[in-house]
C-alpha cells in the first residue's frame, strides 16, 4: 500500500555535538534512513591561503599549525618541505630524523583523537576518549620539550628545525615508546573485540577501493578500503626509506576497518620512532638559511603523508619574501567529498559514525 | 463511598473525565485531543481505585494509557500535516448515525441493568478476577488471545520489508 509520505529535511549542524567543529550536513531522510546528503562547508573559512600571500616564508609556518590543529607538526613539515624544494635547500640528516620522530609522534596523537572521537560518536560516554587524551597529553609533553608549545608548534624551519633535541628528550621518548604498546593493547581489549562496536561499525559506511581512488580519498581512509598506498613507502620523503614498517590495510572499507587501520598505524608509528631513535646521527639541525627566505621565482608542489592523508602545498614564488600563491591540498577536504556516497541508505545514527571515521578536521576543510 | 474524602474524589474525577471527554471532541488540534483522551482514561483508572479495584486500575493504566493512547499518539505524530487537516469530514452523517446507535445500546444497557448498590469490598480483587477468567470466561479469554496473535502476525506481515 503506497503511503503519501514526505521526506524529512534535517540540518545536521553547523551546531551539532558530533560535527567536530562547524560542519553542516543537509540530510533528506525517510524516517531514520538517509536518502540524500549534501555537505555544506565554509563555516570555518579563515583564509589561510590568502593570508599566506602577505606573510614571509618563515611566518607562514605559524599559519600551517592551525590547519589541522591535531597534527601541527605534519603541517609544518609539509610546508617547509615545499619551500625547501622551491629554494633547493639541503636539510641536515639529524634534522630529518628529528622531523620524522616528531611527525610520527604527531600521527599517534592525531590517531588517538580520531579513534577517541569515533568511539564517542558511536555513543561511548567519553571513556575511551579520556584514555586516549591521556596518551596524547604524554605526546604533547614530549613535543613541548622540543619546541615549548603543545598545539601550535611552529617547530619546523626552512632548512631544518628550530631547536635541537634537549638532553632529556630521548630518555623520555624511550619511556613513552615502551609504555605506549601497553596502552594500545588496552584499547584493543576495551574496543576491538567489543560486540557493540563490531555490530555498529562493521558493514557501515562502505567505501569501495574504486570509489576511494575516484574520490581522491587518501590516508588511513584509503588504506581501510584496501588500497596499499602510503607516501612514506610509495614516495619516500625525509628518511622514511631507512625504516622498516608495515602498512596496515583493511578489507571492506567500512567504519570498523577505518578504526582498525588507525589502531594498527599507531603501532607502526611506534616502530618507526624506535628505529629512528637508534639511528639518529649527530650534527647540525638547521641548514644555513636566512630568516627572510628569498626562493627563486618558480613553483613547487610537495606532499607528505599527514595523519589524515596527503597534505600537499603548492607554492608559486615571484622571488620576493612572500609567496605569490599558496595552495593547500588538505586531506580532510578531499576525504569529505566521499562522505555523501558513503552515508546514503544508512541510518542517522551511522551518519555521525561514518563522518567520525573519516577523521575530518574542519580547520583543514575550510582553511 | 461513604467517607467525605471519597465523595470529593469521586466528583473531582467525574468532572475531570467528562470535561476531558468533551474536550477530546471539541479541541481543534488532534494531538491535544489525544492528550485529553489520556486524561479521560486516567480518570477512569482513578474511579477504579476508588472502588478498591486496584488490579483493574493498574491494568487500565497499563493498557489504555501505556499502550492504546501511545499507539494513537504515535500514529498522529507519524501522519503528515495532521494538525492542519480537517478532522470533521464528509463522514459526518454516518458517524452521527453510528454513535447515536451506540448511545442507544449503552443507554438500554444502563437502564436495563439491575444495579446493586453495595460498598466496594476491601478484599484483593486479583485472585477473583483470575478465577473468573480461567473458569467462566475461559472461552472469551482464549478467543482474545487468538485475536491478539492474529494482530501480531498481521503486524509482522505488514512491516516485513518487501
Amino acid at each position: 500500500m503506497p503511503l503519501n509520505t514526505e521526506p524529512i529535511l534535517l540540518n545536521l549542524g553547523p551546531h551539532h555535538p558530533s560535527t567536530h567543529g562547524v560542519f553542516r550536513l543537509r540530510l533528506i531522510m525517510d524516517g531514520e534512513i538517509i536518502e540524500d546528503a549534501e555537505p555544506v562547508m565554509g563555516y570555518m573559512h579563515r583564509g589561510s591561503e590568502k593570508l599566506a600571500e602577505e606573510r614571509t616564508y618563515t611566518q607562514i609556518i605559524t599559519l600551517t599549525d592551525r590547519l589541522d590543529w591535531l597534527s601541527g607538526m605534519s603541517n609544518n613539515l609539509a610546508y617547509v618541505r615545499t619551500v625547501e624544494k622551491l629554494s633547493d635547500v639541503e636539510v641536515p640528516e639529524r634534522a630529518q630524523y628529528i622531523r620524522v620522530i616528531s611527525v610520527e609522534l604527531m600521527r599517534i596523537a592525531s590517531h588517538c583523537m580520531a579513534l577517541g572521537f569515533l568511539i564517542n560518536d558511536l555513543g561511548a560516554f567519553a571513556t575511551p576518549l579520556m584514555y586516549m587524551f591521556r596518551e596524547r597529553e604524554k605526546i604533547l609533553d614530549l613535543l613541548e620539550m622540543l619546541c615549548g608549545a603543545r598545539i601550535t608548534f611552529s617547530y619546523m624551519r626552512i632548512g631544518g628545525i628550530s631547536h635541537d633535541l634537549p638532553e632529556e628528550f630521548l630518555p623520555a621518548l624511550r619511556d613513552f615508546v615502551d609504555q605506549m604498546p601497553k596502552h594500545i593493547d588496552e584499547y584493543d581489549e576495551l574496543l576491538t573485540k567489543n560486540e557493540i562496536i563490531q555490530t555498529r561499525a562493521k558493514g557501515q559506511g562502505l567505501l569501495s577501493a574504486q570509489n576511494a581512488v575516484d574520490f581522491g580519498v587518501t590516508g588511513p581512509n584509503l588504506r581501510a578500503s584496501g588500497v596499499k598506498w602510503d607516501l612514506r613507502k610509495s614516495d619516500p620523503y625525509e628518511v622514511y626509506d631507512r625504516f622498516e614498517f608495515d602498512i596496515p590495510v583493511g578489507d571492506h572499507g567500512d567504519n570498523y576497518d577505518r578504526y582498525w587501520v588507525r589502531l594498527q598505524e599507531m603501532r607502526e608509528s611506534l616502530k618507526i620512532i624506535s628505529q629512528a631513535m637508534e639511528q639518529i646521527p649527530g650534527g647540525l639541525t638547521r641548514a644555513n638559511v636566512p630568516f627572510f627566505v628569498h626562493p627563486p621565482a618558480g613553483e613547487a608542489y610537495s606532499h607528505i603523508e599527514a595523519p589524515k592523508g596527503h597534505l600537499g602545498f603548492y607554492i608559486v614564488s615571484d622571488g620576493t619574501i612572500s609567496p605569490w600563491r599558496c595552495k593547500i591540498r588538505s586531506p580532510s577536504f578531499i576525504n569529505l567529498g566521499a562522505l555523501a556516497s558513503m552515508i546514503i541508505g544508512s541510518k542517522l545514527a551511522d551518519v555521525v559514525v561514518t563522518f567520525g571515521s573519516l577523521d575530518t578536521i574542519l580547520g583543514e576543510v575550510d582553511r | 463511598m461513604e467517607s467525605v474524602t471519597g465523595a470529593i474524589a469521586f466528583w473531582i474525577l467525574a468532572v475531570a473525565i467528562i470535561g476531558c471527554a468533551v474536550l477530546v471532541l471539541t479541541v481543534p488540534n488532534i494531538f491535544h485531543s489525544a492528550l485529553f483522551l489520556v486524561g479521560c482514561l486516567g480518570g477512569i483508572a482513578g474511579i477504579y481505585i476508588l472502588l478498591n479495584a486496584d488490579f483493574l486500575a493498574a491494568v487500565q493504566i497499563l493498557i489504555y494509557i501505556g499502550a492504546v493512547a501511545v499507539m494513537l499518539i504515535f500514529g498522529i505524530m507519524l501522519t503528515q500535516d495532521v494538525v492542519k487537516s480537517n478532522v470533521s469530514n464528509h463522514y459526518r452523517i454516518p458517524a452521527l448515525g453510528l454513535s447515536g446507535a451506540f448511545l442507544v445500546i449503552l443507554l438500554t444497557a444502563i437502564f436495563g441493568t439491575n444495579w446493586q448498590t453495595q460498598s466496594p469490598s476491601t478484599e484483593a480483587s486479583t485472585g477473583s478476577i483470575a478465577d473468573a477468567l480461567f473458569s467462566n470466561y475461559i472461552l472469551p479469554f482464549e478467543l482474545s488471545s487468538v485475536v491478539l496473535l492474529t494482530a501480531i502476525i498481521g503486524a509482522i506481515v505488514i512491516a516485513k520489508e518487501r
Partner: protein
Amino acid sequence: MTSFYGLGALKGLIVTLRYLFRKPFTVEYPDEKLVPNPRFRGNSFVWYEDRCTGNGACAKACPLGIIRIVTHPTSRPDIGNLYAIDRFDIDTGRCMFCALCIEACPYDAVFMGNDFERATKTRDGLVIHKEDLVTGAKLPTQQFRPQLEAMEYKGEEELDQHEAGRWSL
C-alpha cells in the same frame, strides 16, 4: 568465531573497572600545578631594556605585527649614540606565541616568559606595555636561547641582563 558472544563487551567492563581503583591521571589545577618545560613558550614576555637597541627586528618578524616600538635618538656617555625606547607594547590579546620575535632578536633582549595565568577582563588588559615589561618578573625560558640551555637555567630564579645574554653588556 571462537569466543563466546558478548565476552568482548564484558572484557571492556573489566578494563574500566580496573581504573576505578587507580589513581587519576589528572591533577587538580589550582592546588597542584604541572611544571612547564624549560623551553615553554609562556603567555608573557621578558624584556631587558638595556639590551634592546630598538632595531625593531622582533616587530618585523612578528607575523601579526603586534609589537609596537617607538624610539628616539639619544646618547649615553658610557656607550655612545643609541636609540632610547619610548614605547615597547606587545598586544598579547592577538599574540599566538610563535616565538619568531625571540628568534629574530640579535641582541637577546626579548625572551619568552613562563607565566601562563594572565586572564583579564578586558582586551586592553592583555597589552603588555613597556612599564610592565620593565617591572615584570625576569623569568625567561630557554626558547631560542641556547646559552640558557647550556647553563641549565630552568626558570626558577630571576636572571638579570648580564646573565641572560650570550655576551654581557
